[in-house]
């Protein structure tokens, strides 16, 4: 399974729409896929999801190679900006979770740059 997340823009601010599409580069057996925005605290090797939007279902069907799944999400109005330091980071990311039968879910992530 291989996915690519394409976005309409590169830098975001609180409240901005986050629109794009998930391209299935290499499909496989699945029961569907969902996408969410997450605010993640990261201090390698630990991470903690401090906030996540309600997952939006992209499809309930098997992911076929070449499929394109558009999505339209939005950052919360009070979204904190991205911070990256040597000793820890606060980042927003898009996460696509694919429900694979009788296997751990597959996921693909893409970090967003959120400015103040």
């Amino acid at each position, binding site marked *: 399974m291989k996915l690519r997340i394409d976005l309409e823009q590169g830098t975001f601010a609180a409240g901005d729409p986050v629109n794009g599409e998930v391209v299935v580069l290499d499909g496989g057996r699945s029961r569907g896929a969902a996408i969410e925005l997450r605010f993640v*605290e*990261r*201090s390698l*090797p*630990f*991470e*903690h999801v*401090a906030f996540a939007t309600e997952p939006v279902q992209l499809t309930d069907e098997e992911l076929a190679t070449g499929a394109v799944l558009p999505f339209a999400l939005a950052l919360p109005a009070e979204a*904190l*900006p991205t*911070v990256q*330091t*040597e*000793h*820890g*980071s*606060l980042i927003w990311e898009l996460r696509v979770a694919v429900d694979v039968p009788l296997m751990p879910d597959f996921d693909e992530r893409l970090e967003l740059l959120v400015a*103040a």
Partner: protein
Amino acid sequence: MSWPEPPDWLRLEVEPRRLARGGTVTVAFDAPHDRIAEYPRELGLACLAHHAGRFKTGEVGNPGGRFRVDRQDVVCADWRLLDDAEGEFEFTVPGEGPYSYEGDVVSFYWGVWLRAEARVLDREAYVAVVVDP
């Protein structure tokens, strides 16, 4: 999180105590001459990251076990030599730096610190400053 109290011989006035990134903090200080002359100290505005790290141990009963250990590190700081008994410094919070945040695996705390010269972790005094995004 608990912090040490400033020593009773040092008077610190920090304005404002809450500001946005890119803003300026003014720190006025007043201390007896003999204390300042005792050994060099620096006054600074610093951001400390409290963050989770991984520690591998081979202790009895847990050979090779791994535990989460929280660490403190200075993320950014601006230190000024305290070479007078009273005065005022201005510190600017970086516009793109960390803001005050208290989380589970990462927290960022801003404050005004006094330290022995060039000894980053020898913190002697603290006045909290809240930095908004």
